[in-house]
Each structure stands twice: as structure tokens, then as C-alpha cells.
């Protein structure tokens, strides 16, 4: 009956959501699902479909690119589902991409950067499907369990992060934002009858501005910046005469920006050595190739054994297979060509062993390949603050933080014109932050109001 107020709005303003809908962890193919009215826009932007969309429910092999930087992210299958003939009943799209964490992260981050598109909350696809009448009883029941598992995983991951520095940072923002909102709300609900201290809004102005600056700065560099500033700690470890110093002194290790090189001398003692390794971002374990067993089939076991003496115990979170270790098989020029090749074949993609590079510090043979591997490792370390963990949660955080900052802009925009709309900006910012740190209810805001002000109408 109030059609004139909201005639088309429920359709045209629906938010578009995305999520990785295949399982977490390494897998061959990952499926990223998008649902909502902007799905066709997403497809056009990311799969380079400038003209017509593909026929519905038909797989199409496309280059998938970042809509902003135009960088190639992956090649994969894209599918288009026109609503209501989709899982959720809305316009939907699917990206079938390679399953590596780097590709998945890149695609999710690219999606999150699009306007009007945000990561789905746990169970949101299912709820949309349900509301569209797309699910039967058994399906709902089954999906409930699935979502439960998903939420659990997210919760555990969130908890892990919340313990750390990042968690403290988010909690601090959330607390400050809550106070900002409480003070604006106090001004709206009570200032006509009560002595609300002068300048309470001016304080909010500067707090909001400060928060915006901090969140924006965080979004720009996150811990990547921190790493770049403090440098990636690389430790070179190995037995006497394995060639640690030679590796360091080749001077042909490019001074990768921010990389510090730290030789580890055996005299420092095994205990201290292990401690250093534990704190390092990347450990290069140097082995004298001439010491390897001549039978290539025995090399893997030999290296395994060797690593266990160099690396700290697995309880410290450091395993031989960790992304934080590279094996450098030095003095390759002193090993027969044929033996080296067969050993290389044996070690390729060996589970439980880090990548191994044959290299000769004296002749520079194999140095180029080694540097490529090293560079990609450093890049991952700098680019991914969770170093190793698939940063799905991180993509969610990013999106919510971005939306938080956008919402705070609304506060300034309306501050002098309409305080209800200005407050709406702070409310929205808190809602987005709350999706990371936990929901904030009206009662909590009222508690702050009554704690901070003497209200007594």
C-alpha cells in the first residue's frame, strides 16, 4: 500500500554477495559464487564480457582479470544464471578457477573491490535461496549442517586472529566507534532535555576522522607495510662448509627491497641457531651436494633427516614442508650431471619436503632459477599477512573495513545538515566493523550513553 515509497527498491537495491563455495584448502578447482542484481556487472567486469552475456547455464572459458588493475588473475570457466533460474533465485554467476590459495585470494579480493558487492555472511546464500522458495526441507536441513561447519571454521580462524595484534586493533576501533555512536545518539535523544556537554559532537568529529585515517592506512598496507619496513628475516642455515657464506657473498642475491640477509655461523651453537630459525620469515637450508647419497632414491630421506637437525621441533609450528623453508643444494658443479638430474626428478613435488634448488655459488649455475623461487616466496610473505593460511577471512575483513570507511564519510557529509543521516553513517560503519568483531546492539549503545552522561529527564 505504500508502493510509492518503495516500489522498485527491493529489487534494484539488493546487495550482491559472493563466497567461495567449494571447500577450503588446496583443491584442483575452486568455485566462487556470486548472487544478486550486480552479478551480470561482475561477470562483464571480471571475465571481459563487453558485449552479450553468455547463454545461461553454459560454461565459457575466459581470462579472469582484476576489474581495477586489469591484471590477469586466472583462466577459468564462467557461468551465468539468470534469475529466477538459479540456486538463490537471483541473478547469479560462478567462477570456476584454479584451486591455489593465491588465485582464490586474488579473485575474492577483486570481487570485494567492486561497488555494491560484498562477501556473503555464513548461510546467506542458503537464506536467500530459502526466501526465494528454492529449497526443500531436506536441503535446508543438510545445508544447516554445512553452514554450521563453515561457521565453526570461520569462528576458529577469527579467534586465532582476534588473539593477536590484528584482533586488538579491530577491537579498539570497534570500541571507539561505539563511543562515537553513543555520543551522537545521546546528542540526538537527550540533548534537548539534558546537559549534554558542549562540544560532544566536535569530539565525535575528530574521533571519526582519526578512525577513518587509521582504517584507511591499515587498508593500504596492512602488515605488508610492516614487513617491508622491518624487512623479511631470512636465515641461512647449514653445516660447516656447506656454502652459507658463499651464498651470502655471491652478492648476486638481488637486494630485494627490504630483505635483510643474515648469515648464521655454526659457532653460535645449535640452540641459538634454532631460535633464530624459529623467528625467521624464511630459512634457506644450505646443503653440500657432494654429501648427498649417490643413489637419488635415498636423497629425500637424507634431506628429511638433515632438516630435522637444522629446524626447530614441529611443535614450534615449523615443519620441513612449511612455506618458510627453501633447500639450497650447493656445489652442484661438483656432482655428476646425470646424478643431479635424476636427484632433481626425485625431489620434484615431494610431499613433506620444501622446494630444493641445485646451485653452484662458484659457477653461478642454477642461480637464476633459485632467485625466481626465492622472489616468489618473499612476495607471498609480503603480500599475505596471514602467510600461508588462505586469506578468505582477510578478504571479508577488507571489504567490511572499506565499507566502514565509506560509511564514515557519510557522517561528515551530513554532520551539519541532518544529524539523523550523519548518525546513520556511524551506525553503518559499526555494523560493518561488527561483522568482524561481533554484533553491537542498541542496548550496548545505551549502556555507554548512561555511563558517560548524566541523563535524567
Amino acid at each position, binding site marked *: 500500500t505504500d508502493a510509492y515509497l518503495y516500489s522498485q527498491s527491493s529489487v534494484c537495491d539488493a546487495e550482491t554477495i559472493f563466497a567461495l563455495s567449494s571447500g577450503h584448502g588446496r583443491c584442483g578447482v575452486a568455485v566462487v559464487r556470486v548472487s544478486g542484481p550486480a552479478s551480470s556487472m561482475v561477470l562483464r567486469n571480471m571475465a571481459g564480457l563487453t558485449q552479450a552475456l553468455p547463454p545461461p547455464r553454459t560454461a565459457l572459458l575466459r581470462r579472469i582479470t582484476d576489474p581495477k588493475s586489469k591484471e590477469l588473475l586466472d583462466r577459468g570457466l564462467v557461468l551465468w544464471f539468470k534469475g529466477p533460474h538459479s540456486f538463490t533465485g537471483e541473478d547469479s554467476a560462478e567462477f570456476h578457477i584454479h584451486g591455489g590459495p593465491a588465485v582464490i585470494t586474488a579473485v575474492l579480493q577483486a570481487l570485494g573491490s567492486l561497488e555494491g558487492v560484498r562477501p556473503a555472511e555464513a548461510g546467506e546464500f542458503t537464506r536467500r535461496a530459502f526466501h526465494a522458495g528454492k529449497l526443500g526441507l531436506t536441503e535446508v536441513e543438510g545445508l544447516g549442517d554445512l553452514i554450521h561447519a563453515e561457521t565453526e571454521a570461520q569462528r576458529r580462524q577469527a579467534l586465532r586472529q582476534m588473539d593477536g595484534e590484528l584482533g586488538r586493533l579491530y577491537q579498539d576501533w570497534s570500541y571507539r566507534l561505539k563511543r562515537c555512536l553513543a555520543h551522537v545518539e545521546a546528542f540526538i535523544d537527550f540533548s534537548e532535555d539534558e546537559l549534554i556537554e558542549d562540544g560532544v559532537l566536535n569530539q565525535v568529529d575528530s574521533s571519526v576522522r582519526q578512525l577513518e585515517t587509521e582504517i584507511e592506512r591499515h587498508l593500504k598496507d596492512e602488515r605488508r607495510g610492516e614487513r617491508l619496513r622491518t624487512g623479511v628475516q631470512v636465515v641461512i642455515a647449514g653445516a660447516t662448509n656447506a656454502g652459507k657464506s658463499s651464498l651470502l657473498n655471491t652478492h648476486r642475491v638481488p637486494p630485494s627491497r627490504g630483505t635483510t640477509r643474515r648469515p648464521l655461523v655454526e659457532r653460535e651453537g645449535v640452540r641459538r641457531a634454532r631460535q633464530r630459525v624459529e623467528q625467521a620469515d624464511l630459512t634457506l637450508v644450505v646443503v653440500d651436494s657432494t654429501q648427498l647419497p649417490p643413489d637419488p632414491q635415498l636423497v629425500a630421506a637424507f634431506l628429511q633427516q638433515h632438516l630435522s637437525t637444522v629446524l626447530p621441533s614441529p611443535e614450534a609450528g615449523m615443519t620441513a614442508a612449511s612455506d618458510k623453508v627453501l633447500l639450497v643444494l650447493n656445489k652442484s658443479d661438483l656432482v655428476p650431471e646425470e646424478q643431479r638430474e635424476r636427484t632433481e626428478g626425485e625431489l620434484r613435488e615431494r610431499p613433506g619436503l620444501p622446494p630444493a634448488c641445485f646451485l653452484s655459488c662458484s659457477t653461478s649455475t642454477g642461480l637464476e632459477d633459485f632467485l625466481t623461487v626465492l622472489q616468489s616466496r618473499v612476495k607471498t610473505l609480503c603480500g599475505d599477512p596471514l602467510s600461508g593460511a588462505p586469506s578468505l577471512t582477510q578478504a571479508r575483513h577488507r571489504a567490511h573495513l572499506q565499507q566502514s570507511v565509506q560509511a564514515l564519510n557519510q557522517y561528515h557529509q551530513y554532520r551539519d545538515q541532518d544529524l539523523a543521516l550523519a548518525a546513520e553513517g556511524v551506525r553503518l560503519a559499526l555494523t560493518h566493523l561488527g561483522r568482524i568483531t561481533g554484533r553491537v546492539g*542498541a542496548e550496548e549503545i545505551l549502556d555507554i550513553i548512561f555511563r558517560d552522561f548524566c541523563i535524567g529527564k
Partner: protein
Amino acid sequence: MLAQKLHLLRHNVLSFVSSRTGSDFTRRQYDVIVVGGGHAGTEAAAAAARLGAETLLITQKIMTIGALSCNPSLGGVGKGQLVREVDALDGLCGRAGDAAGVHFSILNRSKGPAVWGPRAQLDRERYRQFIQSELLSTPRLTVLEGSVDELLVSQPNPEEPGHHRVTGIRLVDGSHPILSSSVVLTTGTFLSGSLFMGQTTSPGGRMGDAQSCAGLSYTLKETLGLRVGRLRTGTPPRIVKESVDLSLAQLQAPDKQPTPFSFLNTHTRCKPEEQLPCYLTHTTPGVERVVRESVHLNCHIQQDAKGPRYCPSIESRVLRFPGRRHQVWLEPEGLTSDLLYPQGLSMTMPPELQLRLLREIPALHRAEIRTPGYGVQYDFVCPTQLTPSLQVKSTQGLFLAGQINGTTGYEEAAAQGLWAGVNAGRTALSLPPMALSRTQSYIGVLIDDLVGRGVTEPYRMFTSRAEFRTYLRPDNADLRLTPRGFEEVGCVTLRRYKKAVSVRDGLQEALMALQSVALSSTRWREKLGNISLSENKSTTLNGLDLLQYKDVSFEMLASAFPECLSQYFEYSQRLKIEAVYRPHCEKQSREMERIRSEESLSLPSDMDYLSLPVSLSQEVREILDRVRPNTLGAATRLPGMTPAGIIHLLNYVLRTGFMHML
């Protein structure tokens, strides 16, 4: 019927005869019985009667129907929104406010129309008169003076232990029972109420009135097994106006042009120039000293019942925030009243100390007290035991509204009263119960908060409680509620409905007319003079886009396009507000839709969560079992609820009925 009722009322009012005489005139059966004649009771009775139910209102004193027992004012920030909504559903308090107001102002004028707070100081006498004459002229409504001794309920059904059905009431005088399938209790502070002043305590719910309803308390607590809590409140001393040195207080003038509460009124009874001022003054260190010296003589303040944090007595304020200056408003009690009401000075110390305290304030240094302030402690029924229709879950046909549900304030009481009356009427007429969505009204927010979360202190409305504040505005309450109030609920009269529909259509046309005038930014600047538009020169903007700008008024646009816009002058303010808020409301509509659809999925009140054959964690089961949310929406808002739990419940409610949601 009407003649009989008039007779009855006149009989009681004029001769103060006992209710026994009165009851000779009453029938023995009604569709709806409302107990209590305060803000909740009068709205409930009027709403049930508007719905078509034969209704009986029972009150201890007909004289006090419509009495403002505490502050002489109505509305405010958040509360004003409630008044507008009650009015939009054809309730009484908005029109009563327009008839009785002597000082009108819109609070928060500078903060945005969504949070404007229409408010008025009232003439107590005029308010009471308006409510009484309104009830008198309501068809199908009978008023009876008397005290209810007992609520009559059926024996519990053996198949549903603990479930009762209301059958009627019995009066204190022991006369025959009056039967009814719906009873609305609006007993305010009279449920096990006790009054406090200094060290003396006496039973009662309001000074000067009869004692508490002990029989009712017994039925609710013992027979029906309802959980109750205890709250406290208080009222300030009334001061003789002549004894106040108003030259030492700061004058607060009303708005030059009073804005009526009611959508039906274009002006208020009180003329602009007849309005009375308020005065502002402050506490002094001397006030704090008197409070500290009297704490040991003050029973009320030593009790641990929960008082409101936002309406504390002067004692609590001083003790909680020492060393500060607190505001005191001196409010008129009416055009002819010789009293002033000191808002902010509710107190429970002995009367002689109350006088000492007042005289510590410069403007009150010679003040005389007419009636001293006092405190009240009373039982409330934990409102989580109610459904969103305000019916007690375990008792078919029993509805509760007002302070009995743990709220404070006239407006909160009136809002619940109206909705309880609507549902009592619907139940009596065999119509399904209805709920109001929190996405559509403050009344919905109020009731959803009460029944979904319960209360720990007297509940008062604030705009910060409403998620969709930019949509739930005072200006559009008629569009939000009146058409449905007529078409679906049945509590709105045809006259109001027609008016709302014509406003709605007029606004709709005007909005379309605004959208039809489209010019480039350059051309707009030429037409309207030097206005700042952020858009590029070539961008085309329509009139509605333009109206969003701070400096653009509808009048400016209408003078630029008189032929198509000038006919909508009467809507100019509403159009401006609509233009500014519309984009924001549209952004929220998806979230609103989600909340509404989840609110509409009802969870049966007798659901056995502990053994429900779906996979839910023990923790979630216990939360659900304890709170027993009425709808999936309420369940979603429970702390500790998981997304998976919601999906499982969603699954469950598929097999159960859907509650109709407004």
C-alpha cells in the same frame, strides 16, 4: 446502549455512588473487558470498540480517567513518534494532546526531521475532559466504576498443562461475574504497589487512590504462574506557582506556531499567543547537601528495585553524578492551574526535607509545596511471557499493556494499550492476532523489544532503539500505518482512512511531478539563482534530485515551475523530507525486507526446543527454551544464536502457520 452508558457514567460521576449501583446497568457479558483507565486502558478500550467489539472499561474512579498522574506533558524525542503512530492508527492521545496542549515545541529541530520530537505541555483538566468525552461518544463502549477482585480463568486443559483461557472478571463487591473472552489488564503501578515517602511505606499504586489489586496479583502469580519482577518510579512535589520567583529562572518560549500531533488537525485548540512558557533552572550544591543528609531517612532510595536510568530521582542523580549542576524544568500544569511541575526533581525524602531541598534553588527559595513527591514500587509481568499481540502466551484471551509490562511513560503505555485493544477485539471477534513489524513502526520496535528481550529497568522509547530510524519518521506515520490500520486491522475509521489515502495520492502525484521536471545543472542554476550543485554542468537532474540539496526548498522549485508544482504547496515540507531521506531508506529496504520476512515466520510458543528433532547445539536449545522467541526474527536477534541454528528453525517453521505481519 449509548443512552444507558451515558446514564451510567453520569450516574457515577455526579453522585459518586458505589459500583454496585452501577453494575445494575451493566450487561453480564462483553466481547472485551479492559481493566484500568490510564493511557493504556483508554486506548485499549477505544481501539477494541472501534474494531467492533462490545467493550467494557472498568476503572477505580471514573473521575481519574485520562488523568495525567505524573508530568503534564506529552511527546518528545522518540515518544513524539509514538504519539504520531498511535494517532495514525486512530488512537486518542494525539488529538487529546492537541486539545490540551498549552506549550507546543518540536524538539531536535536542528537535527533532522527523522528525529524531530513533537512535544507539548498539557493542561491536565483539558486532557482529562477530552479523553472522557471521547470515550463517552465511542459506540459500543461502556465505562464502569469498580475494582476488579479476580480474573476468571478456565481450569487448565489436561492436555496442555499450564494453559488457561480467560472467561471474565469478578468485582470486589462480590456481585455476579462479568464474562468475556478477552481481558486487557492495564493496572499500571497497582500490582502489589507500595508508596514511599521518607521512612513511611503504604500499600497503593498512586497517592490518593485505592489500594493495589491484591486479587489480581494473586491470579497472575499463583494461578497463572507468571514470572514478575519489581520496578520503582517516582514523582516530584507540586509547587505553588505564586511562591516561585520566576525572574530567577530562564524563560523557555514555545514554538511560535504550534504543530499539532494529530494528522487530522490543522491547528491546536490553544491559540499560538495563548501558549504558556516553561522555565529552566538548576540545582545547587545545597541540593546535594540536603540529599546526602537525608539518605538515612529515605527508604525508597535504599531499596534495590530497579529504577529508570534516564528518569532517576534527584537523590539518585546527585549520588551517581556528584558535584554537578542538574537541570530543573518548571512546567505549567494548565491554563488555570496555580501549580508548577518541577521536572527533574522527583524525590522520596520526608516532606519537610523536600521543602528544604527546593529552597536551596534560587528561584524556589520561597517555594511552597502543594503535594509532596513520593516513590512507588510495583510488580511488572516479565514481558517475554507475551506474544507480539501482547497476549499472555499461556492464557488465551489475556492481554497486558502499559507499566504492567515494565515500561514507563504515557506514550509507551498508549501505544501498547492500542495494540492490546486491537488484538483483544480481534480475538473476541474470532479474527487472527496481528503483530507490528519493527521495520514499520516504533510501536513495533517497542513491542518487539519487550516480548523479545524483556526488561531490566523501566523501558522508555529512544530513537536510537529503531534500526530504521530514517524511515520511521514522525512525518510519514500516516502513510506507514493508516491505510493498513483500516484495510487490515480494522482500528481506523473511514474518515481518517480517506484523508490518509488522499494525502498518499497527493504526495505520489507531487513526487511524479517533481521527477517529470528535468534540467541540466547549468539550467537549474539559471532558474534558481546561485545554488551550489556538485554535479557536472551537463548532468541532468530532476526536481526530486534537486530537492535533496540543503539549500533547495519545494517553494523554490514550485516558483520555477508553477504550472506543474504549485498545486502541491500543502505538501511542501513532507516532499522536502521525502526527497532527502528516500535514497537512504531505499538502501535499507533490503535489510528491512529480510527482517520482515523473518518476523513473519512465527515459532509456536509451546515448541519443545530441548527435544526438537533437528540438529541444534545444546547451548542454542537452552537459549531458545529460556527466551521462547515468538518469531524467527526475534530468534535471530538473540545473543548466542548461530546462523546454523537459524537455518534449522527456518526449516521448522515451514511446517507451522504464518503469523500475519503488519
